[in-house]
């Protein structure tokens, strides 16, 4: 049971906080007084300049995507690094490995070629029109 106590507390706290916040706002907020200005997101702030759903260049997504891809690929470096540094593990998971470095090199070369492709396709050139 002890193991679950933090979880229970966490859940309780979450529920309490949510209901309290809602309850307080319902209590303190003045209902019935609604008009256009009241309903704008920033009642007392700057006038709205443009629509919230601004259109980004599609490049933004592509670069974001590329970041994720290269980022995720690096994940494989962890098991490699662990097994490279830990010969016990290396024997356990990948017995008979004499080529660990070469394997990593091949992996990086392929990633590098991917990067060359990306650069050559001009994806990272920001100033060009999409």
């Amino acid at each position, binding site marked *: 049971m002890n193991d679950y106590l933090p979880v229970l507390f966490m859940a309780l706290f979450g529920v309490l906080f949510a209901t309290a916040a809602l309850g307080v706002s319902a209590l303190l907020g003045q209902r019935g007084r609604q008009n256009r200005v009241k309903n704008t997101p920033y009642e007392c702030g700057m006038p709205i300049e443009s629509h919230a759903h601004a259109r980004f260049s599609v490049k933004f997504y592509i670069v974001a995507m590329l970041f994720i891809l290269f980022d995720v690929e690096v994940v494989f470096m962890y098991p490699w690094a662990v097994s490279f540094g830990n010969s016990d593990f290396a024997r356990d998971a990948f*017995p008979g490995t004499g080529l660990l470095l070469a394997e990593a090199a091949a992996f990086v070369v392929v990633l590098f070629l991917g990067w060359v492709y990306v650069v050559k396709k001009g994806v990272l050139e920001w100033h060009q029109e999409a």
Partner: protein
Amino acid sequence: MNLTLLLPEIIVIVGGLAVMLRDLWLPADRKDGLWAWALAVPLIALAATFLPQLDVAARISVDGAMIVNPEATALSGSFYLDGMSMLLKRAFCVAAALVILMSREYLSELNRGQGEFWSLALFALSGMFFCASANDFMSLFVALEVVTVSFFVLVAFKRSSGTSIEAGLKLLVMGSLSAALMLYGIAFVYGASGTVFFDQVVVNGEVTRTGLRDLLATGQLVYSTELLIGVMLIFLGLGFKTSAVPLHVWVPDVYQGAPTPVTAYLSVGSKLAGFVLMLRVLEVFSRSGPMVDSLTPFLALVAAVTLFYGNLGALPQSNIKRLLGYSSIGQCGYILLGIASAWTVGISGTLFYMTAYVVTNLAAFAVVILVSRATNSHEIDDYSGLGRKNPLLAAALTVALLSLAGVPPFIGFFGKFMLIGSTFGSDELRWLGLVGMVNVVIALYYYLCVIKRIYMREERHPAKSVVPLRLKVVLAISMAALVIGGIAPQFLADKTAEIAEELQFAPRPRGGEHR
């Protein structure tokens, strides 16, 4: 570590990267020539598969038991080269080469993304290669996903066309779903067995890593419900690739929507990759009798439903690609007959049929590409009078469809014969053989409907197809294979029988007395 065994894979991957990079530095007006580079890759890989260094005995006898030869494995046992993977790799090479020959015109017209198309096709090929050699669930999953993700892009390659994108989306959603299901199944198997590897690793007489084959063979891993559920989920996930019920719904839509060369590639490459993995997984689990006994009714059920779904669904179709899509589901059902029977003859028939299916289906799609280039349509009605306009094309399509229908003397006949025959070995599966026979008749009907239009209808579309040399080569090769394979099937039948022996399935059908 035996890197030589990986030579075909290395060739294809390096080739794919080379084509991709070559495209970057090639001026736009010379990109049409890239197909030759792409074509060279599977051909070189095909040649490499014949190297004597790759000819390693897949099994060795230790203490009277045939076990996997460590010499035939690479990458710490994740990669296994046996007769089946060799046969399938050759088939994949041929398929890729023929598809590349077929795609050149399509890409010239599209005038975009040549390098991407060819390199993706080659990456898919490398994925298929690894599928054929996968020897653990990790490489199985990754290889399969390499194929699938490449095909997501290839199917949606014509991004200006709504149908192509739609097909891509459907493939993507269904593919991801089935991958997730399969993965969950693998998790179950891992949970039940504690290993994702098929083979154990022994260092200095001590087992450093357990493998499923050995666990099952020695009885350390016994039949349990979660194991069964896991394997079933794996089969369902693989069934997505092979277009087996219940994850088959994407097939007609994607076949219709995808660019035709991609459909052709998908219909043979991706499908066979799924089948070879099914065979591999089944082979691993056939080490345990109770597992096979519980899998058999499951696979039989899938096979029967798939057969009926594909063949009945094909009947009302008016679009040839869609028809071939349903027919592809039906063909999957036949292959599942052999897999369900899970004994030597059935597996031999399965391999035979898979090989035959490559050339047969590609021939049909080659004609579809040519005809649609002239008529700009995939309606079966527009094939009317093809026999008069393009007698050779008509003959090629007729032969291909007859072979798909399983009419002698074409190669498809023997495959069907062996597959249906294999189910008659056991009392449990005899009903499945009858289902198969009924479906042969149904299938014959819709194939003949197409042939009837070709020869016995007035032509609707006057445009004659011009057959470029590349397509002529495709048709010549596939026709030769169809006819020679039909007249002299012995060579291939012997080869597949030998492989089936090597895979060590039950020599006689289970659950049936031998007459």
